[in-house]
């Protein structure tokens, strides 16, 4: 093969999807962790604040994780958008009529709306960081230690209907995104086998549902009980 002055592996259609898959799976690990962390809220105000305080006091380790996360988000979003635009150009003349041929196709509302759910999640992320990570700083004292009172901020945010139901809606979209995204990542990495493919697909659906439920539980609980 004629050698290129730079490595083109991740500029090929196959390579781009490998980047999408690796960054995507990394983000899945992150959201699972985030969802589980949120559940501390249901344990109590102090437990929740102490949990977030522990995370915040990780210092340099936290920064490292945040940088990798940011990179994963940026690459995932950038490649996702560029792939979608390219794919549109691969069929300039549209069909008058095109429909799904049915099974074994895995084309679903989830798989065909990845770009839209993805873009909404991207906008959500910015708003979300602004409201919480860079939101109002309340402080509290738990067991003699001064720390950020995120519990109070949560209660404040999720007492307004717009914020609560907007959040709930976006989390349901996250579920849709992952329903296709999870198994698709494995397929993009070549990790598919007749024995496991059905299992991976089902696991993806399961993770999508659990995540969506886990994420909407706390805001709804706050909205209706606090």
């Amino acid at each position, binding site marked *: *093969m004629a050698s290129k002055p730079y490595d083109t*592996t991740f500029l*090929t*259609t*196959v*390579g*781009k*999807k*490998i980047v999408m898959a690796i960054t995507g799976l990394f983000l899945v690990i992150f959201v699972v962790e985030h969802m589980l962390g949120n559940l501390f809220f249901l344990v109590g105000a102090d437990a929740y604040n102490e949990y977030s305080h522990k995370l915040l006091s990780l210092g340099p380790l936290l920064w490292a994780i945040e940088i990798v996360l940011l990179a994963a988000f940026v690459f995932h979003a950038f490649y996702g958008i560029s*792939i979608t635009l*390219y*794919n549109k*150009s*691969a*069929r*300039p*003349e*549209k*069909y*008058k*009529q*095109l*429909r*799904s*041929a*049915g*099974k*074994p*196709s*895995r*084309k679903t509302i989830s*798989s*065909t709306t*990845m770009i839209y759910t993805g873009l909404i999640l991207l906008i959500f992320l910015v708003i979300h960081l602004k409201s919480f990570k860079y939101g109002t700083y309340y402080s509290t004292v738990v067991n003699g230690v001064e720390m950020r009172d995120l519990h109070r901020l949560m209660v404040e945010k999720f007492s307004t209907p717009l914020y609560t139901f907007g959040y709930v809606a976006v989390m349901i979209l996250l579920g849709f995104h992952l329903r*296709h995204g999870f*198994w*698709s990542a494995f*397929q*993009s*990495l*070549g*990790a*598919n*086998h*007749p024995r496991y*493919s059905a299992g991976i697909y089902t696991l993806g659906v399961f993770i999508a549902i659990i995540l969506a439920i886990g994420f909407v539980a706390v805001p709804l609980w706050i909205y209706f009980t606090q």
Partner: protein
Amino acid sequence: MKNMTLKLLIWRQKDANSPGEMVPYTVENVSPHMSFLEMLDVLNEKIIKEGGDPIEFDNDCREGICGMCSLVINGIPHGTQHRTATCQLHMRHFKDGDTITIEPFRAKPFPVIKDLAVDRSAFDRIIAKGGYISVNTGSAPDANSIPISKEAADLAMDAAECIGCGACVAACPNASAALFVGAKISQYTFLPQGKPEAKRRALRMIEQMDAEGFGNCSNHGECEAVCPKEISILNIARMRREFLKAAIR
């Protein structure tokens, strides 16, 4: 079953550079035993008799083995009948009075030549980049002198069944050729003769697939559902493994 009268909506396009449109036709006396292409033959005979320009469509073997026939019938490449090429689709699957829409396979790398015939030579250029082995395989006894397990032979045959029709591209929302290229790379991965050139084959065929302008595979799996040979998307996963093996040296 008695003969049918059908309404057809067919894409007509003079040549690659002219705009096309859907044109309505009525075809009478269609026997349910006819194949879809024979039904179009009947229509073309009528058009020719009336002094019109017959509808151009691709076909060759009419036995489901050559990969020349195409057509998107009622929104599905090769029609609603699973595991069936257009030439093997019979009119008994339609009802008297049905309206059937017929469009060409659509993708930037498959430009329309005329009406329903598209230029699929992009596939040939991909094959020319590595869809072969560069040795003289000799005659049949030589081939039998290398033992190959039943499993490997079966998997290689499953992939080699691809007839290169391009329905996978036509059905893909992204016009990706991943299933075709996946099958053509996969078929060699199980056989000793395919091993020496495996890395070069994967990289070069994928490079050519991209150069032709096919889209990225988003794993919708619509390709497998329309493939007349039931080529599985496991072959796409295998292509990606071959690519990773070749890229990480």
